[in-house]
């Protein structure tokens, strides 16, 4: 009881003086939203100060699944860091994997064949579609519409089957290697991909029919948790959340990587930065991703070459038959497996457009076998701090849809 009082007093101190004065007359209630409430979709807590159903203030607590990624990275060879990146935003692990590999490739100055780049784009855009599907359908769930969620999860399942046929894993994929793919995609993968491309538009159109012009859904989401473009920039928003606020910043266009400059796609932009805008921006981005995948498939179809990795023997494991019969391949194999490859000295920042925004890797190498320092710029971590400002004065139910529309993924938040 005494503790609760302490907490209350503490919160009084943190609020602005004019609200603190009002507090003396009014009795506020403290509500714990999370850490294990189903509506938070992850392990994080919000201590809400409520006036009836209106949120007066909130204090987020994070770090419940902190796993010391940055410290771990300082003791691992570069190829062993990939599984760590899987666990950042686990709804779109391939983007994290490939982003990390491109960081290393940038540091060691490697040229990656075009075909590999297009294959990477296909995988990254599939991951973006999967991530946006989860986010958008979950906004529906939190607004009380479960149907759409179940419906698009079938398509997400098909995307996971494509991952599975490439790398064997589904959620934490560890897909891709430094230099390219571990093996060429099989006919099964291509068949699955083409089938997905054929079936997906109809499903997404039907999903949109359920929600986009749905009166109840619109009433619940329009005006919920808005943020202005100015505030969003000041808060370091990136990705769909920033674009919903009206800023057309997309890393794929601004600093193209992986030959994104060869593709034509739309960057949807919102106006109010509220939950509905975020939903719509993601919805349009799914279509943009779909068109990028189509373009990439067409490009690959026209290519005569069949390479699936670049020439980086220091990092890319040689095929087994060579390891057994060839001295050089054996040496490389040993060095990679034992983590004995040195990396040139350097300091580098590489960003990719993750499903949630600019996913950056700040890598400092002192010429050793492991990074000297690796900092992950996690978009979730950075924009989640705006949450109290976005829900202040809103209803509790608005706070829930705002949280799901921000797409805060606990793995990325806590790292």
């Amino acid at each position: 009881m005494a503790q609760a009082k302490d907490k209350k007093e503490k919160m009084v101190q943190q609020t602005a003086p004019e609200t603190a004065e009002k507090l003396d007359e009014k009795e506020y209630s403290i509500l714990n939203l999370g850490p294990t409430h189903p509506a938070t979709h992850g392990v994080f807590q919000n201590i809400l100060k409520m006036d009836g159903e209106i949120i007066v203030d909130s204090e987020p607590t994070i770090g419940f699944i902190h796993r010391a990624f940055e410290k771990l990275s300082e003791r691992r060879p570069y190829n062993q860091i990939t599984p760590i990146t899987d666990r950042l935003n686990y709804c779109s692990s391939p983007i994290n994997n490939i982003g990390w590999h491109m960081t290393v490739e940038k540091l060691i100055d490697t040229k990656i064949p075009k075909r590999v780049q297009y294959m990477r784009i296909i995988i990254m855009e599939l991951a973006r579609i999967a991530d946006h599907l989860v986010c958008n359908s979950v906004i529906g769930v939190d607004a009380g519409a479960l149907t759409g969620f179940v419906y698009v999860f079938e398509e997400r399942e098909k995307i996971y089957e494509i991952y599975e046929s490439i790398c064997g894993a589904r959620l934490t994929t560890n897909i891709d290697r430094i230099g390219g793919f571990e093996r060429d995609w099989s006919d099964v993968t291509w068949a699955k991909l083409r089938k997905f491309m054929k079936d997906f538009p109809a499903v997404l159109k039907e999903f949109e029919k359920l929600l986009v012009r749905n009166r109840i859904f619109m009433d619940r989401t329009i005006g919920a948790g808005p943020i202005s473009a100015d505030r969003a920039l000041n808060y370091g928003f990136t990705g769909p959340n920033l674009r919903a606020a009206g800023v057309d910043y997309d890393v794929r266009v601004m600093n193209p990587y992986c030959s994104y400059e060869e593709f034509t796609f739309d960057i949807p932009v919102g106006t109010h930065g509220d939950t509905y805008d975020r939903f719509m921006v993601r919805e349009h981005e799914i279509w943009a991703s779909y068109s990028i995948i189509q373009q990439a498939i067409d490009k690959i179809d026209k290519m005569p070459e069949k390479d699936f990795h670049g020439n980086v023997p220091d990092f890319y494991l040689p095929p087994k038959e060579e390891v057994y019969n060839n001295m050089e391949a054996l040496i490389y194999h040993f060095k990679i497996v034992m983590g004995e490859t040195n990396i040139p000295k350097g300091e580098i920042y590489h960003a990719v457009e993750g499903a949630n925004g600019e996913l950056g890797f700040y890598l400092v190498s002192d010429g050793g076998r492991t990074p000297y320092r690796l900092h992950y710029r996690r978009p979730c971590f950075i924009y989640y701090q705006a949450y109290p400002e976005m829900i202040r004065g809103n209803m509790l139910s608005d706070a829930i849809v705002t949280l799901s529309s921000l797409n805060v993924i606990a793995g990325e938040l806590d790292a």
Partner: protein
Amino acid sequence: MEDILPVIESKLRETFGDAIVSAEMSKDFPVFTIKKDKIIDVVKFLYDEPEMQFRFLTDLCGIHFPDNKGQELGVIYHLHNLRRNWRIRLRIFFALNDSVVPTLTTVFSTANWMERETYDFFGITFKGHPNMKRILNVDDLGGFPMLKEFPLEDPTRTDKNDSMFGR
């Protein structure tokens, strides 16, 4: 990308003179090392100056070089001019026992959690920060885990020996 290093360097040197310790081009971005107490002025200048307009703080993180006596700790800022697509990196270095840095929350709201994270892992205190406390680790961790001397594993364990591979 055009060569932006001389443009920014001349602007900064003109205004801040000695506070700019070094300016160089790294592999990707221009890097400026700045004296610690001037960092906020420099960022504010870069934010306001019509030709610069670095209005986006991409990243802020700490770094530890235990062998760099007198300059063991560092904070690294990544700024982005979204209009012209210029990215730069600012660095400050200072001694372990002098790890108080002025806060950037006065310019960027986003610096709030980034600075808390830096404090949490490196013990760098940001002066003027509204809520300077740990963010990801438990409050009674005792120590700052990203400092190089902080052990990755439980030091009492004897069943793991990596020494033969030079790690």
